[in-house]
């Protein structure tokens, strides 16, 4: 494994651990561990599990002497990022509409701004992961 690839992988895993711990602590910091907090934590756990699987696969590839990234993986990331960006925009818009039409002005409990932020970020992460998984199997590859 090349040193720069190994360092990059370690950096990604390190950052992921920091994010997971941060989100977990933030989740515990909410007034109560409600449904939405649990949903966010579940999404984060899914992301972490997938990241670890991808890390292991990449480590195996790197050990076999193949590059971790090439022009196709770069193109896939661009494509997945583009599609996930638009899907996230519609998700945010949908959340806004649902809140505006059904929830605003009622006594129904809804997410606080902090909870909403975590939900949106987690959903964006999961959307990116799903889109990346789809395009890396040749669905809409450039």
């Amino acid at each position: 494994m090349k040193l720069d690839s190994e360092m990059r992988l370690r950096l990604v895993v390190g950052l992921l651990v920091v994010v997971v711990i941060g989100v977990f602590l933030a989740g515990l910091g909410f007034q109560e561990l409600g449904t939405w907090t649990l949903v966010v934590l579940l999404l984060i756990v899914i992301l972490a599990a997938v990241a670890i699987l991808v890390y292991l696969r990449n480590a195996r590839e790197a050990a076999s002497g193949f590059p971790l990234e090439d022009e196709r993986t770069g193109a896939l990331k661009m494509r997945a990022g583009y599609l996930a960006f638009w899907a996230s925009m519609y998700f945010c818009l949908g959340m806004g509409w649902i809140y505006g039409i059904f929830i605003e002005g009622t006594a129904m409990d809804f997410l606080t701004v902090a909870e909403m932020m975590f939900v949106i970020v987690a959903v964006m992460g999961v959307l990116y992961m799903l889109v990346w998984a789809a395009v890396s199997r040749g669905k809409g590859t450039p």
Partner: protein
Amino acid sequence: MRTHIKELRARYNLTQEDLARKVGVRRETILFIEKGEYNPSLKLAHSIAKALKTSIDELFIFD
């Protein structure tokens, strides 16, 4: 787009892994190019053609 990569690989007794190593890409990239599900850059097309001792024109079939 179709390619003759598979036939040429067989001619030179190269696996997808061997070809990927020669041109410095991941195995899946060669697989997807062979299946016509990924269009390589001109640079990669040139590298593959060179590795298979042919030209880009003969390697790729533009339908």
